[in-house]
Protein backbone atom coordinates (compact mmCIF):
# COMPACT_ATOMS: atom_id res chain seq x y z
CA UNK A 1 0.00 0.00 0.00
CA UNK A 2 2.69 2.43 1.11
CA UNK A 3 4.75 1.61 -1.96
CA UNK A 4 1.85 2.15 -4.36
CA UNK A 5 1.08 5.50 -2.77
CA UNK A 6 4.71 6.52 -3.01
CA UNK A 7 4.82 5.46 -6.64
CA UNK A 8 1.67 7.40 -7.40
CA UNK A 9 3.08 10.49 -5.72
CA UNK A 10 6.32 10.22 -7.69
CA UNK A 11 4.31 9.88 -10.88
CA UNK A 12 2.28 13.07 -10.21
CA UNK A 13 5.47 14.86 -9.36
CA UNK A 14 7.01 13.71 -12.62
CA UNK A 15 3.99 14.88 -14.67
CA UNK A 16 4.06 18.20 -12.82
CA UNK A 17 7.69 18.68 -13.70
CA UNK A 18 7.04 17.96 -17.36
CA UNK A 19 4.12 20.40 -17.48
CA UNK A 20 6.23 23.05 -15.80
CA UNK A 21 9.07 22.58 -18.28
CA UNK A 22 6.56 22.68 -21.13
CA UNK A 23 5.25 26.02 -19.89
CA UNK A 24 8.75 27.45 -19.49
CA UNK A 25 9.73 26.31 -22.97
CA UNK A 26 6.62 27.86 -24.54
CA UNK A 27 7.42 31.18 -22.85
CA UNK A 28 11.03 30.90 -24.02
CA UNK A 29 9.91 30.34 -27.61
CA UNK A 30 7.55 33.32 -27.43
CA UNK A 31 10.37 35.50 -26.14
CA UNK A 32 12.91 34.42 -28.69
CA UNK A 33 10.98 33.49 -31.84
CA UNK A 34 10.22 37.05 -33.05
CA UNK A 35 13.97 37.68 -33.10
CA UNK A 36 14.69 34.47 -34.97
CA UNK A 37 12.01 35.48 -37.46
CA UNK A 38 13.71 38.86 -37.82
CA UNK A 39 16.99 37.08 -38.54
CA UNK A 40 15.26 34.96 -41.19
CA UNK A 41 13.62 37.80 -43.04
CA UNK A 42 16.76 39.90 -42.92
CA UNK A 43 18.23 37.22 -45.20
CA UNK A 44 15.34 36.93 -47.64
CA UNK A 45 14.31 38.86 -50.70
CA UNK A 46 10.87 40.40 -51.17
CA UNK A 47 9.44 37.64 -53.32
CA UNK A 48 10.25 35.10 -50.63
CA UNK A 49 8.95 37.25 -47.75
CA UNK A 50 5.71 38.08 -49.55
CA UNK A 51 5.06 34.61 -50.91
CA UNK A 52 3.65 31.70 -48.95
CA UNK A 53 6.23 30.72 -46.36
CA UNK A 54 6.49 33.70 -44.03
CA UNK A 55 7.78 31.89 -41.01
CA UNK A 56 10.46 29.53 -42.28
CA UNK A 57 14.16 29.56 -43.04
CA UNK A 58 15.37 31.48 -46.07
CA UNK A 59 15.92 29.30 -49.14
CA UNK A 60 19.08 31.17 -49.96
CA UNK A 61 20.89 33.34 -47.45
CA UNK A 62 20.86 36.81 -48.95
CA UNK A 63 23.83 38.48 -47.24
CA UNK A 64 23.61 41.30 -49.77
CA UNK A 65 20.77 42.75 -47.66
CA UNK A 66 23.38 43.49 -45.04
CA UNK A 67 25.85 45.10 -47.42
CA UNK A 68 23.02 47.15 -48.94
CA UNK A 69 21.83 48.32 -45.52
CA UNK A 70 25.37 49.19 -44.48
CA UNK A 71 26.30 51.18 -47.57
CA UNK A 72 23.16 52.45 -49.37
CA UNK A 73 21.07 52.62 -46.21
CA UNK A 74 23.78 54.60 -44.35
CA UNK A 75 23.62 52.12 -41.48
CA UNK A 76 27.40 52.25 -41.26
CA UNK A 77 27.21 56.01 -40.58
CA UNK A 78 24.44 55.56 -38.01
CA UNK A 79 26.39 52.77 -36.40
CA UNK A 80 29.53 54.88 -36.15
CA UNK A 81 27.52 57.78 -34.66
CA UNK A 82 25.89 55.50 -32.10
CA UNK A 83 29.25 54.04 -31.09
CA UNK A 84 30.82 57.47 -30.76
CA UNK A 85 27.98 59.07 -28.81
CA UNK A 86 27.57 56.05 -26.55
CA UNK A 87 31.29 55.61 -25.87
CA UNK A 88 31.92 59.26 -25.02
CA UNK A 89 28.81 59.34 -22.83
CA UNK A 90 29.91 56.23 -20.92
CA UNK A 91 33.41 57.62 -20.32
CA UNK A 92 32.11 60.98 -19.13
CA UNK A 93 29.47 59.39 -16.88
CA UNK A 94 32.11 57.13 -15.32
CA UNK A 95 34.57 59.96 -14.66
CA UNK A 96 32.06 62.50 -13.37
CA UNK A 97 29.92 60.21 -11.27
CA UNK A 98 32.79 58.28 -9.70
CA UNK A 99 34.47 61.50 -8.56
CA UNK A 100 31.21 62.93 -7.27
CA UNK A 101 30.06 59.69 -5.69
CA UNK A 102 33.37 59.46 -3.88
CA UNK A 103 33.33 63.06 -2.66
CA UNK A 104 29.77 62.64 -1.40
CA UNK A 105 30.14 59.33 0.39
CA UNK A 106 33.73 59.38 1.65
CA UNK A 107 34.85 62.97 2.05
CA UNK A 108 33.85 65.36 4.80
CA UNK A 109 31.98 68.50 3.87
CA UNK A 110 28.82 70.18 5.02
CA UNK A 111 26.69 70.03 1.90
CA UNK A 112 27.36 66.40 0.95
CA UNK A 113 23.96 65.18 2.13
CA UNK A 114 22.10 67.90 0.29
CA UNK A 115 24.09 67.29 -2.90
CA UNK A 116 23.28 63.57 -2.77
CA UNK A 117 19.56 64.24 -2.28
CA UNK A 118 19.52 66.70 -5.17
CA UNK A 119 21.23 64.28 -7.52
CA UNK A 120 19.05 61.34 -6.51
CA UNK A 121 15.99 63.47 -7.19
CA UNK A 122 17.09 63.28 -10.81
CA UNK A 123 16.22 59.60 -10.94
CA UNK A 124 12.55 60.55 -10.71
CA UNK A 125 12.58 63.06 -13.55
CA UNK A 126 11.23 61.82 -16.87
CA UNK A 127 13.18 63.16 -19.83
CA UNK A 128 9.94 64.57 -21.27
CA UNK A 129 10.22 67.44 -18.84
CA UNK A 130 13.51 68.64 -20.25
CA UNK A 131 12.82 68.10 -23.93
CA UNK A 132 11.62 71.54 -25.03
CA UNK A 133 13.89 73.67 -22.78
CA UNK A 134 16.91 71.64 -23.93
CA UNK A 135 15.84 71.97 -27.53
CA UNK A 136 15.67 75.76 -27.14
CA UNK A 137 19.04 75.98 -25.40
CA UNK A 138 20.78 73.74 -27.92
CA UNK A 139 19.19 75.69 -30.76
CA UNK A 140 20.35 79.03 -29.34
CA UNK A 141 23.86 77.71 -28.77
CA UNK A 142 23.95 76.31 -32.30
CA UNK A 143 24.50 72.82 -30.95
CA UNK A 144 21.62 71.07 -32.73
CA UNK A 145 22.98 68.52 -35.20
CA UNK A 146 26.21 67.98 -33.31
CA UNK A 147 27.34 65.00 -31.24
CA UNK A 148 27.28 67.18 -28.13
CA UNK A 149 23.53 67.68 -28.52
CA UNK A 150 23.17 64.04 -27.51
CA UNK A 151 26.24 63.45 -25.36
CA UNK A 152 25.56 66.27 -22.88
CA UNK A 153 21.95 65.25 -22.10
CA UNK A 154 22.83 61.54 -22.01
CA UNK A 155 25.59 62.24 -19.48
CA UNK A 156 23.38 64.51 -17.38
CA UNK A 157 20.55 61.98 -17.25
CA UNK A 158 22.96 59.10 -16.64
CA UNK A 159 24.57 60.76 -13.62
CA UNK A 160 21.92 60.16 -10.90
CA UNK A 161 21.81 56.38 -11.27
CA UNK A 162 25.59 56.18 -11.63
CA UNK A 163 26.25 58.27 -8.52
CA UNK A 164 23.78 56.12 -6.63
CA UNK A 165 25.35 52.81 -7.66
CA UNK A 166 28.96 53.95 -7.26
CA UNK A 167 28.21 55.72 -3.99
CA UNK A 168 26.87 52.56 -2.41
CA UNK A 169 30.00 50.68 -3.52
CA UNK A 170 32.34 53.36 -2.11
CA UNK A 171 30.46 53.08 1.16
CA UNK A 172 31.38 49.42 1.32
CA UNK A 173 35.14 50.02 1.21
CA UNK A 174 36.85 49.76 4.61
CA UNK A 175 38.12 53.13 5.85
CA UNK A 176 41.43 51.55 6.84
CA UNK A 177 42.45 51.13 3.21
CA UNK A 178 42.17 54.82 2.50
CA UNK A 179 43.81 55.74 5.79
CA UNK A 180 46.73 53.44 5.11
CA UNK A 181 47.18 55.04 1.71
CA UNK A 182 47.22 58.49 3.27
CA UNK A 183 49.71 57.43 5.93
CA UNK A 184 51.93 56.10 3.15
CA UNK A 185 51.90 59.60 1.75
CA UNK A 186 49.21 59.46 -0.92
CA UNK A 187 47.23 62.63 -1.46
CA UNK A 188 43.52 62.55 -2.05
CA UNK A 189 43.86 62.25 -5.82
CA UNK A 190 46.29 59.36 -5.66
CA UNK A 191 44.17 57.63 -3.04
CA UNK A 192 41.09 57.98 -5.17
CA UNK A 193 42.51 57.07 -8.56
CA UNK A 194 44.98 54.34 -7.58
CA UNK A 195 43.54 52.79 -4.41
CA UNK A 196 39.78 53.30 -4.37
CA UNK A 197 38.80 53.29 -8.02
CA UNK A 198 40.33 49.89 -8.83
CA UNK A 199 38.39 48.44 -5.90
CA UNK A 200 35.02 49.36 -7.38
CA UNK A 201 35.65 47.94 -10.82
CA UNK A 202 32.47 45.81 -10.74
CA UNK A 203 30.41 48.91 -10.00
CA UNK A 204 32.10 50.77 -12.84
CA UNK A 205 31.20 48.02 -15.28
CA UNK A 206 27.64 47.97 -13.95
CA UNK A 207 27.35 51.68 -14.62
CA UNK A 208 28.97 51.30 -18.03
CA UNK A 209 26.48 48.62 -19.07
CA UNK A 210 23.55 50.62 -17.80
CA UNK A 211 24.69 53.75 -19.61
CA UNK A 212 25.36 51.76 -22.78
CA UNK A 213 21.82 50.42 -22.91
CA UNK A 214 20.13 53.74 -22.28
CA UNK A 215 22.27 55.71 -24.78
CA UNK A 216 22.31 53.04 -27.48
CA UNK A 217 18.51 52.74 -27.41
CA UNK A 218 17.47 56.33 -26.74
CA UNK A 219 15.02 57.85 -29.22
CA UNK A 220 13.26 61.00 -27.99
CA UNK A 221 16.32 63.25 -27.70
CA UNK A 222 17.93 61.72 -30.75
CA UNK A 223 14.93 62.37 -32.96
CA UNK A 224 14.47 65.94 -31.69
CA UNK A 225 18.03 67.25 -31.55
CA UNK A 226 19.38 65.69 -34.74
CA UNK A 227 17.89 65.83 -38.20
CA UNK A 228 20.99 65.66 -40.38
CA UNK A 229 21.54 62.10 -41.55
CA UNK A 230 25.29 62.40 -41.02
CA UNK A 231 24.81 62.80 -37.23
CA UNK A 232 21.88 60.45 -36.71
CA UNK A 233 22.26 57.50 -34.39
CA UNK A 234 20.95 54.03 -35.11
CA UNK A 235 17.56 54.47 -33.47
CA UNK A 236 16.63 57.54 -35.56
CA UNK A 237 18.49 56.40 -38.63
CA UNK A 238 16.50 53.20 -38.54
CA UNK A 239 13.29 55.20 -38.83
CA UNK A 240 14.41 57.14 -41.86
CA UNK A 241 15.71 53.92 -43.37
CA UNK A 242 12.32 52.28 -42.94
CA UNK A 243 10.84 55.24 -44.81
CA UNK A 244 13.28 54.77 -47.70
CA UNK A 245 13.01 50.98 -48.01
CA UNK A 246 9.40 50.75 -47.01
CA UNK A 247 8.64 47.73 -49.14
CA UNK A 248 12.02 46.05 -48.92
CA UNK A 249 11.71 44.17 -45.70
CA UNK A 250 14.92 42.26 -46.18
CA UNK A 251 17.06 45.38 -46.08
CA UNK A 252 15.08 46.85 -43.17
CA UNK A 253 15.49 43.55 -41.34
CA UNK A 254 19.24 43.66 -41.93
CA UNK A 255 19.36 47.20 -40.52
CA UNK A 256 17.39 46.15 -37.46
CA UNK A 257 19.74 43.20 -36.95
CA UNK A 258 22.81 45.43 -37.20
CA UNK A 259 21.28 47.66 -34.50
CA UNK A 260 20.58 44.71 -32.25
CA UNK A 261 23.62 42.46 -32.65
CA UNK A 262 26.06 44.53 -30.51
CA UNK A 263 23.66 44.49 -27.59
CA UNK A 264 23.03 40.77 -27.87
CA UNK A 265 26.76 40.04 -28.13
CA UNK A 266 27.50 42.13 -25.05
CA UNK A 267 24.67 40.39 -23.23
CA UNK A 268 25.81 36.91 -24.09
CA UNK A 269 29.39 37.75 -23.08
CA UNK A 270 28.54 39.57 -19.85
CA UNK A 271 25.23 37.90 -19.09
CA UNK A 272 25.59 37.88 -15.29
CA UNK A 273 26.99 41.39 -15.08
CA UNK A 274 24.21 42.76 -17.30
CA UNK A 275 21.50 41.17 -15.17
CA UNK A 276 23.21 42.47 -12.03
CA UNK A 277 23.36 45.99 -13.41
CA UNK A 278 19.67 45.94 -14.28
CA UNK A 279 18.87 44.81 -10.73
CA UNK A 280 21.21 47.44 -9.26
CA UNK A 281 19.32 50.06 -11.24
CA UNK A 282 16.08 49.02 -9.59
CA UNK A 283 16.91 48.53 -5.95
CA UNK A 284 17.05 52.17 -5.09
CA UNK A 285 13.46 52.18 -3.80
Amino acid sequence: MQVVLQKKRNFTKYIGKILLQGFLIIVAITQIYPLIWLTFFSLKDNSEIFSGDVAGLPQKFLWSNYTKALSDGHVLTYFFNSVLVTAVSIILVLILSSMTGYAITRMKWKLSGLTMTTILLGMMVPIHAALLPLFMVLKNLGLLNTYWALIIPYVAFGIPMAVFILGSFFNGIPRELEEAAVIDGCGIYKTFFFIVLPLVRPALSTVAIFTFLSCWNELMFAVTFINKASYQTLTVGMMSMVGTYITQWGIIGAGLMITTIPTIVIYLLLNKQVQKSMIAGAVKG
Partner: protein
Amino acid sequence: MMNSVFSNKTAITIFVLPTLLIFCGIVLVPIFVSSYYSLLDWNGVGKGTFVGLNNYVEMFNDPRVLNSIKNSLLFAAASIFIQLPLSLLLALILASNVKGEGFYRTVYFIPVLISTVVIAQLWSKIYNADYGLLNSLLESIGLSHLAQDWLGQKHTALVASFIPTLWQYVGYHMLLMYAGAKSISNDIIEAAKIDGASRIRTVFSITLPLMRPILKVCLIFSVIGAFKVFDLIYVLTNGGPFFTTEVPSTLMYTTIFDTYRYGYGSAISVFIILECLVFTVIINKYFKTE
Protein backbone atom coordinates in the same frame (compact mmCIF):
# COMPACT_ATOMS: atom_id res chain seq x y z
CA MET B 1 46.36 64.76 8.66
CA MET B 2 43.49 62.39 7.83
CA ASN B 3 40.95 65.13 8.15
CA SER B 4 42.86 67.61 6.08
CA VAL B 5 43.12 65.06 3.27
CA PHE B 6 39.47 64.03 3.33
CA SER B 7 38.13 67.53 3.66
CA ASN B 8 40.40 69.05 1.05
CA LYS B 9 38.20 71.85 -0.30
CA THR B 10 39.90 72.09 -3.68
CA ALA B 11 39.56 68.36 -4.29
CA ILE B 12 35.88 68.38 -3.30
CA THR B 13 35.23 71.23 -5.69
CA ILE B 14 37.04 69.48 -8.53
CA PHE B 15 35.16 66.24 -7.83
CA VAL B 16 31.69 67.70 -7.45
CA LEU B 17 31.35 70.97 -9.30
CA PRO B 18 31.42 69.75 -12.94
CA THR B 19 28.83 67.06 -12.21
CA LEU B 20 26.60 69.44 -10.33
CA LEU B 21 26.76 72.04 -13.08
CA ILE B 22 25.86 69.65 -15.88
CA PHE B 23 23.23 67.91 -13.77
CA CYS B 24 21.48 71.07 -12.64
CA GLY B 25 21.77 72.73 -16.03
CA ILE B 26 20.38 69.81 -18.01
CA VAL B 27 18.07 67.98 -15.60
CA LEU B 28 16.84 70.30 -12.83
CA VAL B 29 16.62 73.77 -14.33
CA PRO B 30 14.69 72.61 -17.45
CA ILE B 31 11.85 71.35 -15.23
CA PHE B 32 11.35 74.85 -13.91
CA VAL B 33 11.73 76.27 -17.41
CA SER B 34 9.08 73.82 -18.67
CA SER B 35 6.74 74.87 -15.88
CA TYR B 36 7.28 78.49 -16.92
CA TYR B 37 6.71 77.72 -20.62
CA SER B 38 3.47 76.00 -19.67
CA LEU B 39 2.07 79.36 -18.60
CA LEU B 40 2.66 80.92 -22.01
CA ASP B 41 0.92 81.09 -25.32
CA TRP B 42 3.98 80.74 -27.48
CA ASN B 43 4.96 79.38 -30.87
CA GLY B 44 8.68 79.40 -30.18
CA VAL B 45 9.38 82.57 -32.10
CA GLY B 46 9.81 85.83 -30.20
CA LYS B 47 8.28 86.23 -26.78
CA GLY B 48 5.22 84.30 -25.68
CA THR B 49 2.16 85.86 -24.10
CA PHE B 50 1.62 85.05 -20.44
CA VAL B 51 -1.74 83.29 -20.10
CA GLY B 52 -1.55 81.94 -16.55
CA LEU B 53 -3.19 78.55 -16.09
CA ASN B 54 -5.18 78.76 -19.31
CA ASN B 55 -3.23 75.91 -20.91
CA TYR B 56 -4.10 73.63 -18.00
CA VAL B 57 -7.76 74.61 -18.15
CA GLU B 58 -7.79 73.90 -21.86
CA MET B 59 -6.03 70.58 -21.29
CA PHE B 60 -8.70 69.21 -19.02
CA ASN B 61 -11.38 70.21 -21.49
CA ASP B 62 -9.57 68.79 -24.50
CA PRO B 63 -11.04 65.41 -25.48
CA ARG B 64 -7.77 64.51 -27.22
CA VAL B 65 -5.77 65.01 -24.02
CA LEU B 66 -8.30 63.15 -21.92
CA ASN B 67 -8.30 60.32 -24.43
CA SER B 68 -4.50 60.10 -24.32
CA ILE B 69 -4.57 59.99 -20.52
CA LYS B 70 -7.21 57.27 -20.65
CA ASN B 71 -4.98 55.25 -23.00
CA SER B 72 -1.96 55.56 -20.72
CA LEU B 73 -4.10 54.51 -17.76
CA LEU B 74 -5.22 51.46 -19.74
CA PHE B 75 -1.56 50.73 -20.46
CA ALA B 76 -0.79 50.99 -16.75
CA ALA B 77 -3.71 48.73 -15.85
CA ALA B 78 -2.67 46.14 -18.41
CA SER B 79 0.89 46.21 -17.06
CA ILE B 80 -0.31 45.74 -13.49
CA PHE B 81 -2.91 43.07 -14.11
CA ILE B 82 -1.31 41.10 -16.96
CA GLN B 83 2.42 41.77 -17.13
CA LEU B 84 3.25 41.77 -13.41
CA PRO B 85 1.33 38.57 -12.51
CA LEU B 86 2.92 36.76 -15.44
CA SER B 87 6.38 38.01 -14.41
CA LEU B 88 5.71 36.95 -10.83
CA LEU B 89 4.64 33.49 -11.89
CA LEU B 90 7.78 33.05 -14.00
CA ALA B 91 9.98 34.45 -11.24
CA LEU B 92 8.57 32.11 -8.61
CA ILE B 93 8.93 29.09 -10.87
CA LEU B 94 12.52 29.96 -11.78
CA ALA B 95 13.44 30.70 -8.18
CA SER B 96 12.24 27.28 -7.05
CA ASN B 97 15.34 25.47 -8.33
CA VAL B 98 13.74 24.29 -11.53
CA LYS B 99 15.89 22.61 -14.15
CA GLY B 100 17.38 25.09 -16.64
CA GLU B 101 16.92 28.06 -14.31
CA GLY B 102 19.86 30.06 -15.66
CA PHE B 103 19.03 29.32 -19.28
CA TYR B 104 15.41 30.47 -19.03
CA ARG B 105 16.41 33.57 -17.07
CA THR B 106 18.86 34.53 -19.79
CA VAL B 107 16.42 33.89 -22.64
CA TYR B 108 13.44 35.67 -21.06
CA PHE B 109 15.57 38.74 -20.50
CA ILE B 110 16.81 39.18 -24.09
CA PRO B 111 13.93 41.43 -25.34
CA VAL B 112 14.61 43.88 -22.48
CA LEU B 113 17.93 44.80 -24.07
CA ILE B 114 16.69 45.53 -27.55
CA SER B 115 15.98 49.07 -28.64
CA THR B 116 12.27 49.91 -28.57
CA VAL B 117 12.59 51.28 -32.09
CA VAL B 118 13.70 47.86 -33.30
CA ILE B 119 10.94 46.19 -31.33
CA ALA B 120 8.31 48.51 -32.77
CA GLN B 121 9.55 47.87 -36.32
CA LEU B 122 9.68 44.16 -35.73
CA TRP B 123 6.14 44.05 -34.37
CA SER B 124 4.78 46.24 -37.13
CA LYS B 125 6.04 43.51 -39.48
CA ILE B 126 4.50 40.83 -37.29
CA TYR B 127 1.15 42.66 -37.42
CA ASN B 128 1.31 43.46 -41.14
CA ALA B 129 -2.08 42.73 -42.66
CA ASP B 130 -0.84 41.11 -45.87
CA TYR B 131 2.48 39.43 -45.16
CA GLY B 132 2.72 39.53 -41.37
CA LEU B 133 3.72 36.65 -39.16
CA LEU B 134 0.62 36.80 -36.99
CA ASN B 135 -1.88 36.52 -39.81
CA SER B 136 0.01 33.73 -41.52
CA LEU B 137 0.24 31.83 -38.23
CA LEU B 138 -3.52 32.21 -37.83
CA GLU B 139 -4.01 30.92 -41.35
CA SER B 140 -1.74 27.96 -40.84
CA ILE B 141 -3.75 26.81 -37.81
CA GLY B 142 -7.02 27.28 -39.66
CA LEU B 143 -8.13 30.51 -38.03
CA SER B 144 -7.82 32.65 -41.13
CA HIS B 145 -11.13 34.36 -40.38
CA LEU B 146 -9.40 36.09 -37.46
CA ALA B 147 -6.68 37.57 -39.66
CA GLN B 148 -6.90 41.35 -39.92
CA ASP B 149 -5.04 44.64 -40.00
CA TRP B 150 -4.19 44.69 -36.31
CA LEU B 151 -2.64 48.14 -36.04
CA GLY B 152 -4.88 49.80 -38.61
CA GLN B 153 -8.22 49.20 -36.95
CA LYS B 154 -9.72 51.18 -34.13
CA HIS B 155 -10.81 48.26 -32.03
CA THR B 156 -7.58 46.25 -32.18
CA ALA B 157 -4.89 48.96 -32.31
CA LEU B 158 -4.55 49.66 -28.59
CA VAL B 159 -4.35 46.00 -27.59
CA ALA B 160 -1.95 45.35 -30.45
CA SER B 161 0.34 48.12 -29.27
CA PHE B 162 0.30 46.90 -25.70
CA ILE B 163 1.47 43.38 -26.55
CA PRO B 164 5.01 44.39 -27.65
CA THR B 165 5.48 46.18 -24.30
CA LEU B 166 4.30 43.11 -22.47
CA TRP B 167 6.68 40.99 -24.52
CA GLN B 168 9.60 43.38 -24.00
CA TYR B 169 9.38 43.97 -20.25
CA VAL B 170 8.05 40.71 -18.87
CA GLY B 171 11.65 39.54 -18.56
CA TYR B 172 12.71 42.65 -16.69
CA HIS B 173 10.08 42.38 -13.98
CA MET B 174 10.70 38.64 -13.88
CA LEU B 175 14.40 39.28 -13.19
CA LEU B 176 13.71 41.80 -10.41
CA MET B 177 11.17 39.53 -8.74
CA TYR B 178 13.45 36.53 -9.20
CA ALA B 179 16.24 38.44 -7.45
CA GLY B 180 13.80 39.31 -4.68
CA ALA B 181 12.64 35.72 -4.26
CA LYS B 182 16.21 34.38 -4.31
CA SER B 183 17.30 36.78 -1.59
CA ILE B 184 14.91 35.15 0.89
CA SER B 185 16.88 32.95 3.25
CA ASN B 186 16.43 29.25 2.67
CA ASP B 187 16.12 28.64 6.42
CA ILE B 188 12.75 30.40 6.51
CA ILE B 189 11.41 28.32 3.64
CA GLU B 190 12.77 25.13 5.26
CA ALA B 191 11.17 26.06 8.55
CA ALA B 192 7.81 26.48 6.83
CA LYS B 193 8.22 23.10 5.18
CA ILE B 194 8.97 21.45 8.51
CA ASP B 195 5.89 23.08 9.98
CA GLY B 196 3.94 21.30 7.26
CA ALA B 197 3.06 24.26 5.05
CA SER B 198 2.22 23.37 1.46
CA ARG B 199 4.09 24.97 -1.41
CA ILE B 200 1.24 27.32 -2.30
CA ARG B 201 0.83 28.26 1.35
CA THR B 202 4.54 29.01 1.66
CA VAL B 203 4.39 31.30 -1.37
CA PHE B 204 1.45 33.29 -0.05
CA SER B 205 2.43 33.50 3.62
CA ILE B 206 6.20 33.76 3.33
CA THR B 207 7.66 34.42 -0.09
CA LEU B 208 5.28 37.16 -1.27
CA PRO B 209 5.23 39.18 1.98
CA LEU B 210 9.03 39.10 2.04
CA MET B 211 9.09 40.25 -1.60
CA ARG B 212 7.09 43.39 -0.84
CA PRO B 213 9.96 45.84 -1.42
CA ILE B 214 10.74 44.48 -4.88
CA LEU B 215 7.05 44.16 -5.78
CA LYS B 216 6.68 47.81 -4.92
CA VAL B 217 9.57 48.72 -7.21
CA CYS B 218 8.04 46.71 -10.06
CA LEU B 219 4.67 48.34 -9.51
CA ILE B 220 6.18 51.83 -9.61
CA PHE B 221 8.27 50.98 -12.68
CA SER B 222 5.36 49.62 -14.64
CA VAL B 223 3.00 52.48 -13.78
CA ILE B 224 5.59 55.17 -14.52
CA GLY B 225 6.70 53.27 -17.61
CA ALA B 226 3.11 53.34 -18.88
CA PHE B 227 2.81 57.08 -18.28
CA LYS B 228 6.10 57.75 -20.04
CA VAL B 229 5.69 55.38 -22.97
CA PHE B 230 6.85 57.16 -26.11
CA ASP B 231 9.22 55.27 -28.41
CA LEU B 232 6.94 52.34 -29.02
CA ILE B 233 3.81 54.31 -29.87
CA TYR B 234 5.74 56.93 -31.84
CA VAL B 235 7.22 54.29 -34.12
CA LEU B 236 4.41 51.76 -34.16
CA THR B 237 1.30 53.89 -34.77
CA ASN B 238 2.19 57.51 -33.96
CA GLY B 239 -1.06 57.64 -32.04
CA GLY B 240 -3.29 56.43 -34.85
CA PRO B 241 -5.67 55.24 -36.15
CA PHE B 242 -7.97 58.09 -35.15
CA PHE B 243 -6.04 58.74 -31.90
CA THR B 244 -6.94 55.30 -30.55
CA THR B 245 -3.36 54.65 -29.40
CA GLU B 246 -2.35 58.21 -28.56
CA VAL B 247 -0.63 58.70 -25.18
CA PRO B 248 0.33 61.96 -23.41
CA SER B 249 3.98 61.83 -24.51
CA THR B 250 3.23 61.42 -28.21
CA LEU B 251 0.58 64.12 -27.95
CA MET B 252 3.10 66.41 -26.23
CA TYR B 253 5.55 65.73 -29.04
CA THR B 254 3.07 66.53 -31.83
CA THR B 255 1.78 69.59 -30.02
CA ILE B 256 5.28 71.02 -29.74
CA PHE B 257 7.03 69.96 -32.91
CA ASP B 258 4.19 69.65 -35.42
CA THR B 259 1.70 72.33 -34.38
CA TYR B 260 4.23 74.64 -32.65
CA ARG B 261 2.11 75.17 -29.54
CA TYR B 262 5.09 75.32 -27.18
CA GLY B 263 3.13 76.49 -24.15
CA TYR B 264 0.39 73.91 -24.47
CA GLY B 265 2.90 71.11 -25.12
CA SER B 266 4.85 72.14 -22.02
CA ALA B 267 1.67 71.99 -19.97
CA ILE B 268 1.24 68.36 -21.09
CA SER B 269 4.86 67.58 -20.18
CA VAL B 270 4.39 69.12 -16.72
CA PHE B 271 1.28 67.01 -16.36
CA ILE B 272 3.29 63.85 -17.16
CA ILE B 273 5.84 64.68 -14.42
CA LEU B 274 3.11 65.39 -11.87
CA GLU B 275 1.25 62.23 -12.83
CA CYS B 276 4.40 60.14 -12.29
CA LEU B 277 5.15 61.84 -8.96
CA VAL B 278 1.63 61.49 -7.62
CA PHE B 279 1.40 57.80 -8.45
CA THR B 280 4.85 57.11 -7.00
CA VAL B 281 3.81 58.76 -3.75
CA ILE B 282 0.50 56.87 -3.66
CA ILE B 283 2.15 53.50 -4.32
CA ASN B 284 4.82 54.22 -1.72
CA LYS B 285 2.18 55.13 0.81
CA TYR B 286 -0.01 52.07 0.29
CA PHE B 287 2.92 49.76 -0.02
CA LYS B 288 4.88 50.72 3.08
CA THR B 289 7.64 48.16 3.38
CA GLU B 290 8.26 48.34 7.09
